[in-house]
């Protein structure tokens, strides 16, 4: 198993008038190679949680293990941890700073102390993986469009060859096509490299198509944890915490309630189509 979180709690602004509990007794295990979606609305603690995973934030109580090693152990190499657990923040503007895209992507691997040839090779490879070709290498990162900036930011992390890739709202502010492209590329990377991927989002639709497991957070706690099918079965509770399920779940449930013998487990559009066709076929036979 790659990441294990045990009873982690965290409060913002401890000892001030604005103290707020952001994480409340979180326990979670994420095996190597899993594609996990972390979902919750704004302020549910999902961003706080992921910043604990690479040691940027320190839990008020609880323990975190990476490959079985306690990351709060005295003398644990946090910088090595950060290169293995790559975290891409929501706003690419927060990390792009170099004169051109290529040197910006080189920043991460160079910090690992790699030789220059290796750094450049990794930058090329990473930019290729996110679909930014040669013509973009010498462009200023501030000239790029929103989607391209985000790709450049993701490449900046990929070039460090992380074992775990965490993406915080990678699709916020993107049009549907840009969103699908980025998520498709991430899904492909996850398959090719066997990388563990954590996708943080507030959109069920985004996540449902890609991930094999969904962790739903609300008010600093984990409310649901399981396969998309299992989690979406609780769509009424999900609505209560302001999330809801993908449209397909509602369509199928609605059909079932009206007495249409359809399998309501489907989550993606394709699965829903097949389920409806199957149900129609069955009816035709009757």
């Amino acid at each position, binding site marked *: 198993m790659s990441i294990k979180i045990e009873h982690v709690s965290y409060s913002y602004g401890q000892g001030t*008038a604005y103290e707020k509990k952001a994480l409340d007794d979180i326990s979670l295990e994420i095996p190597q190679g899993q594609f996990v979606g972390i979902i919750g609305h704004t302020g549910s603690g999902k961003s706080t949680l992921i910043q604990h995973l690479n040691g940027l934030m320190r839990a008020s109580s609880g323990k975190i293990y990476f490959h079985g090693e306690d990351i709060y152990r005295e003398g644990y190499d946090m910088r090595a941890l*950060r290169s293995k657990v*790559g975290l891409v923040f929501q706003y690419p503007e927060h*990390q792009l700073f170099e004169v051109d895209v290529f040197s910006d992507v080189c920043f*991460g691997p160079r910090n690992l102390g790699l030789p220059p040839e290796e750094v450049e090779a990794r930058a090329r490879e990473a930019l290729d993986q996110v679909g930014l070709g040669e013509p973009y290498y010498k462009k200023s990162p501030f000239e790029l469009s929103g989607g391209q900036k985000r790709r450049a930011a993701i490449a900046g992390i990929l070039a*460090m060859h992380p074992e775990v890739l965490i993406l915080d709202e990678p699709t916020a502010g993107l049009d549907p096509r840009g969103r699908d492209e980025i998520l498709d590329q991430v899904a492909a990377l996850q398959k090719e490299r066997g990388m563990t991927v954590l996708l943080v989002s507030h959109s069920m639709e985004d996540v449902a198509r890609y991930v094999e497991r969904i962790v739903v957070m609300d008010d600093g706690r984990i409310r649901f944890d399981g396969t998309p099918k299992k989690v979406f079965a609780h769509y009424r509770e999900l609505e209560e915490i302001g999330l809801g399920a993908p449209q397909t779940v509602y369509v199928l449930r609605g059909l079932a309630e009206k007495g249409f013998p359809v399998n309501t487990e489907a989550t993606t559009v394709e699965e829903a189509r097949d389920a409806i066709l199957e149900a129609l076929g069955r009816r035709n036979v009757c």
Partner: protein
Amino acid sequence: MLKDITLGQYYPRDSVIHRLDPRTKLVGTLVFLLSLFLFRSFACCLVATLFLGAVIRASKVPFGFMVRGLRSIMVLLAITMFFNLLLTPGIPVLRIWKLTVTREGILQALFMAIRLIYLIIGSTVMTLTTTPNHLTDGMEKGLAPLNRLHVPVHEVSMMMSIALRFIPILMEETDKIMKAQMARGADFESGGLIKKAKNLVPLLVPLFVSAFRRANDLALAMEARGYRGGQGRTKMKPLIYQKRDYGAYLILAGYLVCICAAGILSPL
């Protein structure tokens, strides 16, 4: 590290001090700070302590918050005390090697320390009980007579309130950028001075870009809502002195009389 700055951090509470007109608080703070430099005796010190203690009590802000701001002046305090202690001429009390400590020096150092501490606590009380917006409102109204001398009072106070408003935003932004770069292996702590300065580039570039972008957005938003400076601008909540403000001024005058009397009656 960034969290230690209390100056300019409002502490929400419902108290008489919070409800006072910002002008009253500004004048009060100013008078208190000036009075600190008038006194030269223990009697004065006692009066100031009682006054400050009463105000802190009335403000309902935990005492710990007042003291937090002192951490930043610890070094300054130590240096001032050190020099006052050793360099004031007078009756020698203690002699270590070539250094002489005098009776006057001890008193001087003590008063200086008390003054500095009260200075910080006094102004912290004001910023803890007044929102930045209120503060600049009070300044604008209080300095309004300067308008006749063609001092752009409104513009200056608007700039001040915007600057104050942006401090927490930019601090949060700095924190986020630092984290984003640390996630890419950036190191802001180790290395010599030149290396440290160089390491700040990945932090400063995005910070400046973001500050300019925010400034631009804000300017556009203000223009879109028809902002064109102070001329003919009215307020939704104009500042009007209440009974409690007159009461506060009376107490302030009382304090001033007491401290002057203490200064004259017991000149050390």
